[in-house]
Structure formats: C-alpha cells, structure tokens
C-alpha cells in the first residue's frame, strides 16, 4: 500500500494538549503511527493515564513506550503552562508540532449560564490554548519552524440551542488560528484548524446510529470516529503542509454544507 513520504512525521516531536474527550488516545496514536514522538498534556490525571495506557497497548507500543511522556496540569494559568514546559524539557530538546484538542463542552440555556461557567469554558478552551500557543509558538518562532493544529467544533461557524458558551469558545479558537497563522507565517509556522461535526468513539453499526434523528440528518448517515480525522491531522502536522495556513478544514459528514 503506497503511502506518500509527504505524510510522514518521522523524527518530529509533538505536544498534544487535551482538555478532555475520549478521542485523545486515538489522536496520540495517529501521531505516533506517522513517526512522531508525543508529549501529552492532559487537564486531569485520569485522562493522562488513559492516553498513556492506550499508547502502551497500541500497535506502536514498542516505539511509543519509551518515546511518549506527559503531564496532568491545568493550562488555564501561566504557572501551569510553565510546569508543562519544564516537564516537556526534561524529555525533549525541540518541539515541531503542537496539537490542541480544547473542546470542553457545556450545554445550558443562555439565561442559566453563570459567569463562573462561562469563565471555566473559555479558560479551558480558549485561554489554555492561547497560553500554550504563546509558550510553544515562541520556541517555534526562534527555531523558524512549526506546525500547530487546533481541533475545533463546527459550532465555531454555527449556533446551537444551549450552545452559546461552548460555541463562542470554538469561534475564539478559529479566530486565534487565523491571527497566529498570519503573525507567524514568515517564521515558517503553519497554523490550521481541524473542525469536526458529530463524533463518537463508539463503533456502533450505522443502522443503530440512525435511530438518532441527528444521524439521519447528517448527509453521510453516521457519526464520525476519530479515525476519520487521523490522516488529515497527520497531514496538517507534516512538513509538506506548507501552503495551507490559517484555515479550518471541516470533517463532518456533510453537516456544514447542509441548510
């Protein structure tokens, strides 16, 4: 099966930051499969353990076992980011790739969202990503190379009932993607967003999924699985992704093209 060398991440060092979501172990696995070493930053110890355990059991465990490391820390304040970078520095000497999976969900009616809840969602999703991009990006600027991928929800483009706080945080990530791409473009850093629709890590047959109205409303009639974004994630992290920057690429079974 010929896979072009353009899709290789061999020799690259990636930081994968996750605020939650069961897709994190898959994303780490895909980066490792493409040849990268991965340092995981998770918001909770449970999530970190889940990701690192998956890598130990995964098909590339021989390589990933001694190459993948991580830390559980909140990135919502500069102190947490500093601790994360110190932990990273004890294992690696350069960073080529940063993947942010900051999609902590909150769904509540507009009139019921407390200021603290708004702050928490924006701090986990937007502020944590901003602070980590600042820390990692400054190193990338110095070395004159980098690839940043922000996973976002397609609610960055659309509204949803009860989705105001979350959707606004995703739109912030998309906007951040554009400005970082422009500001760091001449430092050979590319920043793109990978947008998803309705995803699940469960592998239910399409017939079972289609009992849900939203699945029947999705043109491809199934939910997405993390494997549906694996190759795209790898491409956006690769050296050959040189002319795409500041853009969202949506993988959503056709939802966004829908009325």
């Amino acid at each position, binding site marked *: 099966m010929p896979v072009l060398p353009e899709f290789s991440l061999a020799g690259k060092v990636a930081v994968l930051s996750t605020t939650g979501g069961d897709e994190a172990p898959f994303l780490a696995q895909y980066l490792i499969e493409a040849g990268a070493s991965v340092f995981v930053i998770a918001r909770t110890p449970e999530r970190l353990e889940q990701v690192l355990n998956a890598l130990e059991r995964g098909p590339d465990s021989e390589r990933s076992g001694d190459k993948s490391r991580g830390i559980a820390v909140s990135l919502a304040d500069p102190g947490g980011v500093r601790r994360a970078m110190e932990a990273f520095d004890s294992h690696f000497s350069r960073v080529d790739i940063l993947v942010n999976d900051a999609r902590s969900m909150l769904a509540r009616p507009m009139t019921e969202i407390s200021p603290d809840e708004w702050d928490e969602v924006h701090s986990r999703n937007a502020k944590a990503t901003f602070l980590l991009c600042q820390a990692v990006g400054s190193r990338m600027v110095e070395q004159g190379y980098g690839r940043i991928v922000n996973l976002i929800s397609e609610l960055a483009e659309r509204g949803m009932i009860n989705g105001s706080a979350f959707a606004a945080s995703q739109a912030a990530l998309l906007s951040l993607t554009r400005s970082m791409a422009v500001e760091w473009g001449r430092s050979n850093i590319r920043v793109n967003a990978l947008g998803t629709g309705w995803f699940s890590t469960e592998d239910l047959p399409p017939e079972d999924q289609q009992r849900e109205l939203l699945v029947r409303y999705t043109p491809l009639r199934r939910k997405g699985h993390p494997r549906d974004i694996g190759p795209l994630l790898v491409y956006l992290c690769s050296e050959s992704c040189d002319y795409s920057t500041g853009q969202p*690429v949506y993988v959503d079974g056709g939802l966004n093209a829908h009325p």
Partner: protein
Amino acid sequence: MLETLSMEDKVVVITGGGTGLGLAMVRAMARAGASICAAGRRQAPIDAAAAEVTALGQDALAVSTDVTDSGQVDRLMETALEKFGRIDVLINNAGAVQENVRKPLWEITDDEWNFEMNVSLTGAFYCARSASRSMAERGKGKIINVASGFGLRGGRDIYMYCCSKGGMIQLTRVLSFNLARYGITANTLVPGYIPTESADESMGNTVPRSGDLLPIGKLGKPEDVGPLAVFLASNASDYMTGEMFIADGGGLAGGIAPTGHDPVVPLEV
C-alpha cells in the same frame, strides 16, 4: 490508519490533467498507486502526463476532451469505464483563464462571459453529472472540484473567474448534499496563487511574481497540491463532504495585503 492514504486500485479521471496543478496532482496520485485517465483539450500534454504515470508502473489513459461539450464529456467517462471498469474519483480541474482575465465591467462581451463560465463551471457540472451515474450504481465515488481563493473574495476587474470559481464551491455543496445517499462525496480544493506556465502565459503581469503580499511571504508550488489531492481522493477523506480544503499561504486568513502592517496598540485604561 495511514494506509487509508494509499490510492492503490483507485481510478481517477482528471480534467486539465496535462499541465499545471493538474499535472502535479496526477504525479502525486500515481506515486500513491492510482490509475489515471487524464483529459485535456490538447493531446500532447495529456499524453506526456499518461506516459509519466505508466513509467511509475500505473495504468494510464489520455483522452482529448473539450469539457464545454457534454457529448465529449460523456465519451470521456465511457472511455474511462471501458478501460478501467469504474471511476472512483473525478477531479474537475479544467479551467480557463483568458488573457483578458481582468477587464472592466462595461468592456466584457457576452462571448467572453460565456466562454469562461462554460469552461470553468458548466464543464465541471457536465463532468459531475456524467461520472456520478456510474458512481451511484456502485454506491461509491468522490468528486473533487478545484476552485480558487477568488471563489471566496472579489478581485479587481475579475468577473468571470471569481463567479465561476464561487460557483464551483456551491456546486460542491449541492452535489455533496444530494449524492451522499449514493455513497458519493464532493469536496473543493481551493488553491491560492500558485504560478504555473499557463497562468503565467494568460494572466501576464496580473499575477504576483513574489509572495511579498502573502502572510507566509512566498508563493505556492504546484507540488503543494499533490498531497491535498491524494488526501481528498483517497479513503482518508471518506467522512468529509461538502467542504473546502484551502491552500493559499494565509491569503484568506489575513488578506493579501502589505504584511508590514503590524500595529501595537496598548489596552485602553
């Protein structure tokens, strides 16, 4: 997971496959294992492209086609089906850039408007209509439309090109919505400025010669679209439909503008 990026056993029909971005896509897809049917108006460039594919060990066919003639388009698809037995991927890449790509509104003739809309948009519609029939019967297929950043923004005195490319993006959305039930996906590849021989010839001094005004500070190369075509044409993009993949050096994200504009303004107290 990465094996989904292989194009082994895939049959691709690509219009405008002999030159420029089309040729770069053909090369990348053939390296990834695809068989190629290259279409184009002129025989020599598509013959050369087919020879390159054959040299890489893949099957190839070159069919001279004027995409503005739906009869010729139908024959193109029939020829591909006869030789390969199926069409997995259609890439609508043929486009026309007239010498007078920039022309003031009141000087554009009916013929000039029609010519460009026919080649760039109507041709893609004919190809999609024709190729999707056999795809629908098999319950599987991919259509990739090649647009341009000018499909999303206006350009000074660029009427037909902007409108036909904007039309390509909408054609993709409508195709994706209606063909999903037949297992067919449709996506748009949106390149920014990428100098090629034909664009240089026809656009003359109206294309930028350097990337000074682009956020990344350089222009793209035809090879930049190779991996994009492979991603969009392979099983790796099976859950993506109705969408765009933009490769434009940050032109749409930040604008094609003097990049020296970097004000620092303190937060008001």
